[in-house]
């Protein structure tokens, strides 16, 4: 079984470059603007799109993404509406991989089996669920893989060689390496250290390895892309979105371009990595 994620990485491998992966919160600052932003991402240079599923208690996220989730919830976002948003995106784009990222409880309450059917039908390709380590694989990971969705696991600096095989056992699509011990939006990682960590993971798997947490600038994205199969940027995009809002936190005419422009410059950083590597 090949998903859009597998196809995209195969295509990028042919081009000899790394992926630029974007993260934004579904429904931030409101469902309509959020869909407009997501639709603008591929043209701006996003190779893979991660969409956050808002949750009241995001225990691995820093203040920026916490606030994004609360803005979305306040605007009436729900998991059902997130899936509607994915369907809206898929009307115009059947190639760009979409990954839903978040916490388990909203999916558990939606109903795991129903969620997997609805997510697959909507055009979701993969899931990243922060609070489901391999110890809880029977909850969602195994059913998701059976349903034809990639289950993308987080590996971290605390995931040592002894534990890596367990983390990689039921992982597909790609491996998301969290480059720091910490929450989203905190300090950035040294790209040399990240390079060593990626090489270590690659000794255990053939899957692509993308790196996230702490990447904010085109230069940082480029440095990471030289050392990994993809660079993930989230908090910097969420911050750019927030800065474009009016005093009441509503979208303005600047909101979509603010995010798209930053995505373009970051994407250039990632694409520059190919030249650097050559």
């Amino acid at each position, binding site marked *: 079984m090949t998903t859009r994620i597998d196809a995209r990485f195969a295509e990028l491998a042919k081009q000899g470059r790394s992926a630029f992966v974007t993260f934004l919160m579904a429904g931030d600052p409101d469902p309509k603007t959020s869909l407009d932003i997501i639709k603008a991402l591929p043209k701006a240079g996003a190779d893979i799109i991660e969409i956050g599923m808002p949750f009241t208690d995001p225990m691995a996220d820093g203040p920026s993404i916490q606030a994004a989730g609360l803005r979305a919830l306040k605007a009436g976002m729900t998991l059902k509406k997130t899936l509607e948003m994915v369907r809206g995106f898929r009307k115009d784009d059947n190639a760009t991989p979409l990954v839903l990222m978040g*916490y388990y409880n909203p999916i558990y309450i939606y109903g795991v089996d129903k969620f997997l059917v609805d997510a697959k039908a909507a055009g979701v390709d993969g899931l990243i669920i922060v609070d489901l380590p391999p*110890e809880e694989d029977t909850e969602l990971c195994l059913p998701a893989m059976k349903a034809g969705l990639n289950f993308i696991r987080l590996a971290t*600096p605390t995931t040592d060689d002894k534990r890596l095989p367990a983390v990689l056992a039921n992982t597909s699509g790609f491996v998301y390496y969290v480059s720091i011990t910490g929450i989203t939006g905190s300090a950035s990682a040294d790209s040399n250290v990240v390079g060593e960590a990626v090489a270590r993971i690659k000794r255990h798997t053939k899957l692509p390895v993308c790196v996230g947490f702490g990447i904010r600038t085109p230069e940082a994205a480029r440095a990471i892309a030289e050392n990994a199969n993809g660079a993930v940027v989230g908090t910097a995009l969420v911050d750019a979105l927030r800065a474009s809002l009016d005093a009441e936190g509503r979208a303005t005419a600047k909101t979509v371009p603010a995010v798209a422009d930053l995505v373009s410059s970051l994407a250039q950083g990632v694409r520059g990595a190919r030249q650097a590597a050559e």
Partner: protein
Amino acid sequence: MNPNLPNSFRSGPDERGHFGIFGGRFVAETLMPLILDLEKAYADAKADPSFQAEMNGYLKDYVGRPSPLYFAERLTGHLGGAKIYFKREELNHTGSHKVNNVLGQIMVARRMGKKRIIAETGAGQHGVATATLCARFGLDCVVYMGAVDVERQQPNVIRMEMLGAKVIPVQSGSRTLKDAMNDALRDWVTNVHDTFYCIGTVAGPHPYPMMVRDFQSIIGIETRQQMREAEGRLPDSLVACIGGGSNAMGLFHPFLDDPSVEIFGVEAAGHGLTQLHAASIAGGRPGVLHGNRTYLLMDDDGQIQDAHSISAGLDYPGIGPEHSWLHETGRVTYLSATDDEALAAFQLLSRLEGIIPALEPAHAIAKVMELAPKRPKDHLMVINLSGRGDKDVPQVGDILKGKKK
């Protein structure tokens, strides 16, 4: 008889940390290796007689155990039914049952070589106990406390700071215990290399619910023995308040396999179960938060709802997973008491017994006021008086003067 009932109610959790469908290890990968280390370190400590001996020494001479089992003669006479005993956990050093668990966890942290301790706190009792033991053992201590709770439990904030702890007011979400726990988890993910998270209740990822229960079970173990000495038999019923449920689990667990003992947990019904409250079992359903599956207050989308209770220590939208399981198996009956009922019990106990209880066990007393009169005079009822009310005196004083509602 329900065919799914276990042979014993005291054998959980299984090796994956499950009590029936409840419990588990729902945490970020960054924390998983440490949680597995902790599980091993705790298993080693439990099997090490010198660990238990050292802990018993501190429990006796530093905490002041055993806590008395006291016959509440005037309350018994006033209610006119069951013979009521208090397990006096409020007499422990630091003023509540929380110290039993903190002592155990700090000793495990020392075995693991951790130098920095973090904790979440609601009423501040767990924070004070953690700050106390950190001072005693020379460890750095950071306590996360919701900004709302910092405001309403000032005496405990001052105590923690005097003991050398850093208290961080949490401004996110509802700014109460749930949010303090979120920020403590965020700190832990960030400082996982040197930090031990001292969780204050029987919740969180495995092995915490089991470990905290084990450390608190001294309450029930002593009660069995003291009741045998006082009355020559087991009690007929047990009553305890429940936020996360550690004082209740500590009292209940040693009695779970004694079918003659009726067991009641009392949740906080806040303004009432149809309004804002903190009664997860009465008003919630199973979900996943803070590392475990358990009963939670949430909306149809799985978003966690804000709890409300007059008592900061019960103001949490979840409950320990073992309680969820004891509820579903029917072994424990879960009731709830409102803010107003707790306030009335607070005043009654102060005047009848000369004991100012914390607002948390005042919820248990409130239900005893309903349960005791319906039971015969030879019925032995034990209430866990889990904390003293000094911390609540300014808040209750203001409420009674009508300044706040």
